[in-house]
C-alpha cells in the first residue's frame, strides 16, 4: 500500500480528479468532505499528508488547521497543503501563521498538485 493522503474537500469532481491523479501516482487517497468532523478523521486516519480546502461545510479549513497544529493531540509535523479559491495575501498570511506547510490557489494544475504532494510527503 502506498503512502496515505487525506483529501479534505467538498467538491465531488475535484475530489475525483485529485484522487485519480494521486492514485495513479501510487498514493492511497482517502477523502473527507465534512469540516466539522475533519479533525477526528485526521487523527483516526493518521495520513502521511493532508490536503485541506479552506471553504468546507460546517467548519473553515483555517479552524481545522489551527486545531491540528494546536489541539490536545497536535499533529505538529504533519504536512498540510491548503487549497483555497481565494488567493489574497491575507489568506496566505493566515495559512502561514496557523502552520500550513504549503498554500495553493485554485484553479491549479494537476502537475502542480502532484509535484507538491511528492515534495511534502517524500519518504
Amino acid at each position, binding site marked *: 500500500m502506498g503512502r496515505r493522503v487525506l483529501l479534505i474537500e467538498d*467538491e465531488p*469532481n*475535484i475530489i*475525483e*480528479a*485529485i484522487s*485519480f*491523479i494521486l492514485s*495513479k501516482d501510487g498514493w492511497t487517497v482517502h477523502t473527507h468532505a465534512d469540516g466539522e468532523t475533519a479533525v477526528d478523521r485526521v487523527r483516526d486516519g493518521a495520513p502521511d499528508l493532508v490536503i485541506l480546502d479552506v*471553504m468546507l461545510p460546517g467548519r473553515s479549513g483555517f479552524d481545522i488547521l489551527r486545531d491540528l497544529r494546536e489541539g490536545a493531540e497536535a499533529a505538529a509535523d504533519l504536512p498540510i497543503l491548503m487549497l483555497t*479559491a*481565494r488567493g*489574497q495575501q491575507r489568506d496566505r498570511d493566515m495559512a502561514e501563521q496557523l502552520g500550513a506547510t504549503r498554500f495553493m490557489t*485554485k*484553479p*491549479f*494544475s*494537476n502537475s502542480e498538485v502532484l509535484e507538491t504532494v511528492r515534495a511534502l510527503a517524500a519518504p
Partner: protein
Amino acid sequence: MPERQLTGTRLRNRRIDRGMKQSALAEAVGISPSYLNLIEHNRRRIGGKLLSDLARELAVDPEMLVEGTASAVRVPLQEAAAEFRSAAPEEDRLDELVARFPGWAALIGAQQDRIAQLEARVQRMTDRLTHDPQVASALHEVISTVTAIRSTASILNESEGLDRDWQARFHRNLDTDSLRLSESSQALMGYLDMNADAAAQVQSPLEIAEAEMAARGYAYPELEQGRASPEELSAELPDPRARQILRNWLTIFAEDARHLPAEAFSPAARRVGHDPLRLARLFEQPLDRIFRRLAALPEEDGHPVTGLAVCDQAGVVVFQKPVMEFHLPRSGAGCPFWPVFQALTQPGRPVRRRVGLPGSAGTVFDCAAVARDFGPPSFEGPTQVVATMLVRPASAETGETPGRVGPGCRVCPVEGCSARRQPSLLQEPG
C-alpha cells in the same frame, strides 16, 4: 456633533412650540413634508430663500435659526485642513477666510462632505467585493467549478490509455461542471450587475431617479390622465439632482402620452401585434416615442413584458427599464453588440436584431433600436444624439439564430470576442 446640525433642531423646536404640524409648515413654504423632516433632523442643509420662508412662517428671525453658522462653516474646513496637512493650509487665518470669502469657505466645506460621501461609497463597494458573502460564495462556486473542469480536462488530455469507464465518468463530470459554471457565472453576473438591492445602495442621482421609477413600476397613470404634473410627481425626491432627472423623464413621458394617448395607442398596439414600425406609420410619430409608449403599456392589461434602454452618444445609459436578465451596465461598459449602441452609429436608421445572452439561461431578446437628434435643431455646436432600444424576451426555440451579446466584458464568459475591452473575471488572463 458639529454645530451645523443645530439649525434643523432649532427649526423643529420652534415649530413644535408654535403647535404647527410638519405638513402644514411644509405646505406653507412649498416643500414636501418628507424633505422638511430631513431638514428638521439635520440631514439637509438649508439657507437662502427657504430659510427665510421657514423663518417667516415660524415668526422668527432667520438669524435665530442659524446662530452658530460661522462655527458650522468652520467644522468641515477644520476637518479638511486636518486631512490635507500637506497642503499647509493657514489654519490661523481660518476665521478670516470664513469672514471674507463665505462662498469659497462653503464650497470647501461642501467638497469635504462630498469627499467623505465618496470615500464611504468606495468603502461600501470594496466591502461588497471582499466581504459580501454572496459575492464570496458566487466566486467560490465559479473558481471551484473551473478547478474541477481544468483538472478533469487535463486528465482526459494527458492520460493515455485511460479506460472507457473512467473516460465516460470524466466526460460526465465535464458536462455537469460546465453546466454548473454557466449557472454560477450567471449568478455572479446577476449579483454584480443586475441586483436591484445592490443598485439601490449606489446613490447617484440617476440611480435614485431610476429607483423611484422602478418602485412605481414605470407607471404614472396620473401623468397620463393629466391629473398630476412632472413637477408634482418628482417633488418628493429629496435629492435636487435626482428630482431634476426624474422631472425631465416624466416631462418626456407626458409629452409621449399627449401624442399617443393610452385609449388610442393601447388597442392599436394589440391590433398590430405591438409592431413598432406599423405603429409609427399609423400614428405618424417617431420610432423612439413609439418604443417608449410600448414599454409603458401595462403588462396587467395583457401587453407583452417589455424593457427599454436609452443611451447618449457617449454610450452612457441614461435610462433603462430592465426586463428578465436584460440590464445594461451603467458606466459605458456595456457590450457594444447590443443594438442600442449599433443604432448610435447610424442615426435615423432603425436596427432590429435578435440577440442572446451567454450561459445556461441563454435568454433571447428581440431588440429594436433607433438613434436620432434629440435637441432642438441648430447649426451651432455638436448635435445631441440619443439612441432608444425596445427589448422583448423571445423564444429561443423559434425564429432566426440569435446574435451573441454579453453582459459587459468584466463578467462575460464569451471567448475570442473581437470587442473585448478587458479580461473577464470568469476567464484566466491569457
